[in-house]
């Protein structure tokens, strides 16, 4: 099957291409224009923008904590439409099927679930396998687990740490490694109620800084393309920008990714003791070239926060709306699920909203700032189209700002920012940059050989609507979205890295599981064969 | 100044000049009329003039047990101040110190409709140190504060009107202090029957009528020397030789109509009493009509 997408504006920052022209797809790949030029199918993309499928590097779409959130909030996600025959359960209120459908309709073709406890990796992969259309991946969590902290406590060398990370990535079939409130969650198990970057975990005698730096080094040494993905300490607290600054400084030239930086952009200025510190953070990020961040934009409305930062979720429990929460003391990180309502009349929520936008607009390099709402923590991913519009239009921003409390604007700088993201910058931030960050060489661009993941948008006056409903989306060369609606299912694969741990580490882990749990460590790993279809695609670790 | 003479009483061709105020009303109940009145009297004490008391307050009327929310005897009191902030402060201080403290009392909104609402129970509930309980009954919300004789029930909020008027007045002039007082007392008694209006001074009467300003720096008001009989020969006096004593009645009302009605009732009582046992002349205080937006012409109020 040879497909020609004709006469669209091809926007491919990775190839420095921005021109009206044709794009050719054959099988599951983008190809150079063939000599004979006769397509089986031609789509007239005149007036449209043609981009690679978008990539979301941080969105909580699957796994035990997400499912707990579904079960916790039955009233919040009722289905209101019956399903179309060709897409079972796609209109269920909050299903994996609906997740795949909604992402595809926005032109997203790859999504990373960024926080999976290794013991729940199989569950997460099962959910991802039931998430149609998109490719997906998980990041495995370490940094609060007894085995890993024990290695650090006992002074294990970098090789042992590296092998443990490799074992974990291999066992959980993950694309990368995440650390969440490093040491803080473990400390909470000993009833510690606040935990900073240089605080020391009881029983283990290691600080958060040591944990982050140790794991950062291990990930780097393994050659895993995606740098350590860090959820810092002190999330959500006034004055916590200092924690983020300290963490950025601790990168010391090695790659490090800071997740949902918005939640760390808070000063303690102003009469309410809460203000935007986004300019300070943006300055630090601009200067630290080895650091990447995603924003975790907050948008107004009802949502639910899902986090493996158990300490943070517990500390914030009084803010749950509706008033209920689940806190899980897990085998390592566990999780916390708490419904929350961001209100535009709330001073604090308005500051959060503004901090995110400030970070987007003040960080210069679109290759180092990633587009996320930390779905669903800042907002559901379905809010992305509105967020694109906010970034691309000062007028849209001005309209939103007019609804916010004046006190909130007084402790922020957003009103003075004039930058408007170009289509090219949006394409970079959502395609070229995340593919580079995750080491996905055949995604995020439209050069010959690229995977035929293509999204086409028809720019209109309403930018949010433009991005909400892609005109066409191809996944692996198959057209799955027409005029903003998913036509049928196909199932993508989970992307993973496959570093080989030293056999000695495998033995050591096995001994640990036997001694501590009386279980075979293999019981909690993800066997490839157990999953349906063709579950995994391995991403190379170049080192 | 030409005088209209009615039943021998001269009514000056002048007007009382009054000002916009913020006003509200409370209903205070207790197990007996005696204790309802006690609480009301205490909370409206030292509330003669906003100049020094923060607010002007008084008893509007006593209520029978069929007229109150809890079926007990009650008293309706009115409070007036020049700003919402001040009225709020006075309300919570006075209810907190004088009603909350009074045996068996309860306190309800005496005004349901207004441009704004003031915190009532919502402001003093913290006295209960966490033991306070809110209770919503229909559209009304009450706070219940455990106290040593049971519970103090206090409505959460009360309406406030911005259409209240303060400073309606009558100047009652007679031959002797005795006849002047008799006429003024008669007027006050008649005026008390008028709803939505109070006379905040002692017994409704002020003998030290004031003018704006003073020779002393910082004082905003001083004695109204134009009406002081003992200065008659020393100043450009407003009173003739037949006047030996002047008393004033100041009226605040939730509406301008209430102030006018009170003045009308007072004038009628004075005229009905006649000059022999009462007043020779009735005037009113004003500032030339430039300061207050409400003008009550005595001639128009004379029956």
């Amino acid at each position, binding site marked *: 099957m040879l497909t020609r997408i004709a006469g669209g504006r091809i926007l491919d920052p990775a190839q420095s291409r921005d021109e009206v022209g044709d794009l050719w797809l054959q099988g599951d790949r983008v190809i150079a224009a063939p000599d004979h030029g006769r397509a089986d199918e031609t789509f007239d993309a005149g007036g449209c923008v043609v981009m690679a499928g978008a990539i979301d590097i941080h969105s909580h779409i699957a796994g035990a904590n997400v499912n707990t959130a579904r079960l*916790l909030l039955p009233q919040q996600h009722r289905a209101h439409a019956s399903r179309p025959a060709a897409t079972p359960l796609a209109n269920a209120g909050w299903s994996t099927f609906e997740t795949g459908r909604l992402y595809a309709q926005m032109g997203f073709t790859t999504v990373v679930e960024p926080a999976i406890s290794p013991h729940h990796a199989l569950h997460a992969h099962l959910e991802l396998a039931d998430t149609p259309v998109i490719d997906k991946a998980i990041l495995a969590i370490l940094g609060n687990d007894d085995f890993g902290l024990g290695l650090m406590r006992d002074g294990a060398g970098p090789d042992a740490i590296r092998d443990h990370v490799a074992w974990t990535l291999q066992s959980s079939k993950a694309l990368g490694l995440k650390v969440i409130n490093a040491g803080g969650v473990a400390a909470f198990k000993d009833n510690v109620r606040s935990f900073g970057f240089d605080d020391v975990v009881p029983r283990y005698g290691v600080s958060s800084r040591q944990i982050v730096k140790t794991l950062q080094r291990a990930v780097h040494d393994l050659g895993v393309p995606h740098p350590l993905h860090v959820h810092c300490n002190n999330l959500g607290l006034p004055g916590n920008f200092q924690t983020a600054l300290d963490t950025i400084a601790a990168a010391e030239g090695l790659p490090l990714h800071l997740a949902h930086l918005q939640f760390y952009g808070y000063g303690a200025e102003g009469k309410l003791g809460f203000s935007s510190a986004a300019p300070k953070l943006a300055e630090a990020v601009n200067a630290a070239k080895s650091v990447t961040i995603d924003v975790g934009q907050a948008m107004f409305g009802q949502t639910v926060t899902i986090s493996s930062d158990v300490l943070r979720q517990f500390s914030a429990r009084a803010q749950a709306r509706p008033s*209920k929460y689940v806190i899980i003391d897990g085998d390592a990180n566990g999780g916390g699920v708490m419904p929350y309502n961001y209100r535009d009349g709330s001073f604090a929520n308005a500051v959060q909203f503004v901090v995110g936008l400030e970070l987007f607009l003040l960080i210069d390099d679109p290759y180092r700032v990633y587009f996320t709402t930390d779905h669903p923590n800042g907002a559901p991913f379905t809010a992305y189209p509105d967020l694109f519009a906010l970034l691309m239009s000062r007028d849209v921003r001005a309209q939103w700002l007019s609804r916010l409390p004046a006190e909130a604007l007084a402790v922020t700088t957003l009103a003075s920012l004039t930058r408007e993201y170009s289509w090219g910058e949006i394409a970079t931030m959502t395609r070229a940059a995340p593919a580079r960050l995750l080491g996905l060489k055949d995604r995020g661009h439209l050069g010959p050989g690229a995977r035929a993941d293509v999204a086409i948008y028809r720019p209109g006056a309403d930018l949010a609507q433009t991005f909400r409903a892609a005109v066409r989306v191809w996944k692996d060369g198959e057209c799955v979205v027409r005029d903003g609606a998913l036509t049928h299912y196909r199932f993508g694969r989970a992307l993973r890295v496959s570093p080989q741990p030293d056999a000695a580490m495998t033995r050591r882990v096995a001994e640990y599981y036997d001694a501590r749990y009386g279980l075979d460590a293999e019981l909690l790993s993800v066997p490839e064969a157990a999953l349906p279809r063709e579950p995994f695609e391995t991403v190379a670790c170049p080192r | 100044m030409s005088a209209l003479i009615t039943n021998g009483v001269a009514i000056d061709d002048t007007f009382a000049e009054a000002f916009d105020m913020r006003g509200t009303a409370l209903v205070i109940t207790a197990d007996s009329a005696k204790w309802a009145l006690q609480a009301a009297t205490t909370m409206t004490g030292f509330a003669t003039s906003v100049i020094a008391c923060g607010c002007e307050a008084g008893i509007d009327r006593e209520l029978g047990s069929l007229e109150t929310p*809890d*079926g007990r005897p009650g008293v309706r009191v009115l409070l007036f101040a020049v700003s919402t902030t001040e009225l709020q402060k006075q309300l919570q201080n006075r209810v907190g110190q004088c009603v909350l403290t009074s045996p068996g009392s309860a306190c309800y909104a005496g005004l349901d409709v207004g441009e704004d609402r003031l915190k009532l129970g919502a402001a003093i509930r913290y006295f209960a140190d966490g033991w306070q309980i809110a*209770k919503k*009954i229909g559209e009304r919300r009450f706070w*219940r504060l455990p106290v040593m004789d049971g519970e103090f*029930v206090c409505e959460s909020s009360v309406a406030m009107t911005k259409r209240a008027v303060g400073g309606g007045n009558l100047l009652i002039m007679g031959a002797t202090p005795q006849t002047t007082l008799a006429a003024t007392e008669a007027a006050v008694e008649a005026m008390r029957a008028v709803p939505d209006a109070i006379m905040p001074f002692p017994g409704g009467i002020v003998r030290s009528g004031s003018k704006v300003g003073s020779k002393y720096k910082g004082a905003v008001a001083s004695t109204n020397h134009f009406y002081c009989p003992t200065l008659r020969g020393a100043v450009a006096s407003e009173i003739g030789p037949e006047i030996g004593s002047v008393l004033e009645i100041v009226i605040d009302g939730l509406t301008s109509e209430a102030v006018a009605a009170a003045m009308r009732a007072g004038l009628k009582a004075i005229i009905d009493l006649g000059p022999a046992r009462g007043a020779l002349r009735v005037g009113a205080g004003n500032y030339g009509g430039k300061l207050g937006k409400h003008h009550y012409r005595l001639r128009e109020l004379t029956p």
Partner: protein
Amino acid sequence: MSALTFTLRCPPPQRVDLCALTPAQLAGKSLAEIAALPIQTNRAPLCVGDLFALKDGERGTIVFEGGAERLDRLGAGLDTGAIRVIGAVGVEAGRGMSGGALTIEGDAGPYAGSGLRGGVLRIEGDAGERLGGPRAGETEGMNGGLIHVAGHAGDRAGDRLRRGFILIEGAAGDCAGSRMIAGTLAIGGKAGALPGYLMNRGTILLAGGCDEMAPTFGDCGVHGLTAARLLASYVETHSPNLAAAFRQPLRRYAGDLAALGKGEIFSTTT
């Protein structure tokens, strides 16, 4: 003009969902359109006209002649107007009502008045379990308005009650007022065991005693409370009997001390 009348033709062959049949939703609809509204809850198609004979009338006043235990969600979402049912109804009668009046001249199933926010629900027969209570997964039950049951009520009447009044003339089942958040629940007959279990705030009146008080309610003695007089005045028009009970000297039990402990049970059996 007389009321729009739905006369039950036959026992319902399946449970039916009648939430579409409220004055606001039927306003402007022709009789034929109303008859064609789907009400089935399984795969067998069933329309209003299949189950009911319709007699045209004013849309603001609706009468159901004949009831059945399978008539679910009758009057759910009612916001204005009046619905009268001559007969029994199934689950969730008047769920989420925000105004108007729903009168059931018969028994109601479980979850009657669930999540009521306003209006008056009157049940002349008995009510099933969880009267006014939340559906599974909701954090709040009834949030305003008034429910009056002439007969008895099942277990956990007033579960998670947050605002408004539930008046039960007859007996109530176990754990009446469980998990109450606030509001007022008055029971004329005898209540079952552990009224007010885990209640945080709110008032329960037991005019006929109960099978067993929870040990986590503290006896605060007998009082004539002004607040009870206020409640009596409000309840008077709906239930002179319960109003009279509120005016009696009442023993006050504070609780549930296992929970927030700011609720109370008033008992007339001093």
